[in-house]
C-alpha cells in the first residue's frame, strides 16, 4: 500500500505541470536528443496523461496491473534517459517534474530518485496483494 501511494502521488505530481504546459515539457524531451523530432510533441502530450492515469490507477486500484507495468516501463526509461545525459556529459533540464527549460538540474539526484522509485515499482510488480483494489 505504501508503494502504491508513493508511486501514485509521485506520478500525479510529476504529470501536473506537464499536462498544463506541454510545450515546456516538449523542449525538455528535445534536450535529451533521444526522441525523433516528429514524435517529441506527441510524446509531450501523451506521456503526462499516462503518468496521471497511472498515478490515479495505482492509488484507486483500477486497472492496477496495467498501471504497475507502465510505472515500471516509465521508470526504466527515465533511468536510461538520465544515465545517457550523464554519460554524454549533458546538463539538461530533467523535465521530471516541472519542466523549467533551465539546463542545470542535477541529473545524478534525479537518477538516484528514479532508482528508489524502481525499487517500489518492482516490488509492486511482484506483489500479489489485492488489498484496496476498487476494481480488477
Amino acid at each position, binding site marked *: 500500500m505504501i508503494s502504491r501511494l508513493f508511486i501514485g502521488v509521485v506520478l500525479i505530481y510529476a504529470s501536473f505541470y506537464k499536462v498544463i504546459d*506541454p510545450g515546456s515539457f516538449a523542449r525538455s524531451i528535445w534536450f535529451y536528443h533521444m526522441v525523433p523530432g516528429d514524435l*517529441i*510533441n506527441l510524446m509531450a502530450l501523451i506521456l503526462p*496523461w499516462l503518468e496521471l492515469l497511472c498515478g490515479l490507477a495505482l492509488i484507486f486500484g483500477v486497472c492496477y496491473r496495467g498501471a504497475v507495468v*507502465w510505472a515500471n516501463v516509465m521508470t526504466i526509461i527515465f533511468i536510461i534517459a538520465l544515465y545517457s545525459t550523464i554519460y554524454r556529459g*549533458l546538463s*539538461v533540464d530533467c523535465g521530471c517534474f516541472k519542466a523549467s527549460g533551465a539546463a542545470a538540474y542535477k541529473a545524478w539526484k534525479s537518477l538516484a530518485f528514479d532508482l528508489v522509485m524502481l525499487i517500489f515499482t518492482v516490488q509492486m510488480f511482484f506483489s500479489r496483494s489485492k488489498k484496496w483494489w476498487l476494481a480488477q
Partner: protein
Amino acid sequence: MAIRQAIILLILAIILGLGANLVSPNKIEYIGAYRNLSGSDGPIIPPDAEENDPPFIDINVAHLEHSTQRTIFIDAREKEEFECGTIPGSINIPFEYMPEGDLQLYLDSCLGHVAYDRPIVVYCSGEECDLSLHLARNLAEYGYTRVTIFFGGSREWERFGLGLERRRDCDG
C-alpha cells in the same frame, strides 16, 4: 490482463492528451518543428569557406556543445550587438576591433588562458556575417586545436526556440 489494462491506459492517455490539447490555452502543434541530432539539414557553410577552415557545426551540435558546459562560446560581433542578444554564457571577442600587435597574448587573455585543446564554438549573427569565420581562423592559427564555427549564429539559435541572453534592452 496486465497488458490489456496497460493498453487501455495508453489509449485513454492518447485520447485525453490529444483531446485536451485542442482546448488547452497552452496548446502545441501535434508535430513539432524540431530537428533531430542526426538531421540531414547539416551545418550552414559560407561560400568563401576554405578547405583548411575549422569545421562548421549545425544547430544540434551547437546545442549539444552548449549543454556540456565545457565548450567556450565566442560571439565575434561588436559589443553593442553582443549585449542585445547572445547565446547564454558566451564571451565577446569583437573581430573588427582586434588590436594591433600581439594577437596571441590578446586571444589568450580573452579566453582566460584556457588549455589550447578546450572546445570552442565561434559564431556571430547568422549567414550574412562572416566575423565568426575570420575569428575562428585566427584562433586556429594561434594554436587552438578544437575550434568550430556555428555559422547559423544567434539567429539560428533563437529560431529553434533557444533563449538568448540579453544584457540590455535594444528594442527600437
